[in-house]
């Protein structure tokens, strides 16, 4: 009897341990997650958050600067067009985050003005990184940018789909106000697969 009980206790303990360790594995950040990078951000409402705080929900992310009249409205426009192609529940499930490459000028107030001008819903975050973190975030997302002598920037304009844990699932160059249909399909597929 005793050995059997001992065995049962052991197996319960072992079960507990293994469920704890699978919990730990679930919480562990994947090695290829973009949230492996540490960065401090401020949103358009002046709230501070960490880059890792975006974890937990699917996000479409991009980088821009608000003092930009050609590509940046396209980035926001194609993000909005993407939202409009989703069902109401999918729209609620998807966050959008745009990181500034120009933190000196993209103050929370400047970012809030962009959010208001484009009537962005609360799923959108316009984020100002610390100066020293812009390059690291761009490198993590493989977005390239270069400051020009006249104060403008050249940059790759890209929408990137991140899963809940920050793994890059899809990316698409922004060329006009409509997002690439293949990218939209990827977003829908991921949202459908992860209730």
């Amino acid at each position, binding site marked *: 009897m005793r050995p059997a009980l001992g065995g049962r206790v052991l197996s319960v303990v072992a079960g507990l341990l293994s469920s704890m360790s699978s919990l730990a594995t679930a919480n562990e950040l994947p090695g290829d997650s973009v949230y492996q990078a540490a960065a401090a951000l401020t949103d358009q409402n002046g709230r501070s958050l960490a880059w890792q705080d975006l974890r937990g929900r699917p996000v479409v992310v991009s980088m821009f600067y608000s003092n930009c009249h050609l590509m940046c409205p396209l980035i926001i426009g194609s993000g909005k067009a993407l939202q409009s192609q989703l069902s109401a529940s999918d729209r609620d499930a998807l966050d959008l985050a745009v990181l500034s490459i120009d933190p000196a000028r993209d103050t929370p107030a400047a970012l809030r003005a962009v959010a208001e001008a484009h009537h962005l819903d609360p799923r959108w975050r316009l984020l100002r990184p610390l100066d020293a973190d812009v*390059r*690291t975030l*761009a490198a993590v997302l493989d977005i*390239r940018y270069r400051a020009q002598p006249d104060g403008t920037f*050249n940059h790759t304009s890209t929408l990137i789909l991140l899963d809940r844990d920050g793994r890059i699932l899809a990316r698409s160059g922004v060329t006009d106000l409509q997002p690439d249909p293949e990218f939209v399909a990827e977003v829908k597929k991921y949202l459908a697969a992860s209730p």
Partner: protein
Amino acid sequence: MLTSTTLWFVLLATSSPATSQATYMEIPGAAFRSTIRHEGNDGNRVVADFALMQRAVSNREFQAFVQQHPHWRRDRVPALFADSGYLLHWRAAGAPEPLDADRPVTRVSWFAVDAYCKAQQARLPDWAEWEYVAAADTQRHDARHDPAWRKRLFADGTARAVDAAGDSPANAYGVHGLHGASWEWVGDFSTLLGDSDKRGADDGDRLQFCGATGLSFNNRDDYAALKRVALLSAMQPRSTLGNLGFRCARSRP
């Protein structure tokens, strides 16, 4: 006696990789004509005053960093930040070969060297800053017009490089080893991309800049600089190479 003293010294040196205070040389800025130009920038730059490490970061110094920040160890670094060659020449995950301790560290990714410099309250130098200081020979701040000097730089990144020996003299700014056996990362390496770059041909477009495009060269005779740009522009930020190291810089406060 001599042997045991030497051995003791080596042991002492390898067992206590205390964060040595790296020496930074003050670099007075000036107008400078870069070998590379971007659309919207003909290559004329103004390099602001800054400070640059006198020597490239060594294996020993990088070991101290890895000890203080263990998630940068070879066996713990996330795949996002480094490829499989990262610190592969170290005899253990946390320690370089003793004989290599003072040599410039190599097999380090951009992410790792970016983190190293940030941990020293520093940053990586930009390409223009690096090129500006590397234009100097031992006597002149800008020796690039001298064909003999330019020719010597063809061996950059090899064992025959001008500064390959550990005791090579400083250049006119007091900086050592810029033309050594290893190349060096720069902070803005990813902007050195030519506009005809089509890496990952199925998706080459995403590497193109909006509006203006990539880079071209002002002086095609400056072959050593071209070679350096070509090498850096082919790297991903998680890439490592057996002959690519780094040093840090600081802006003037």
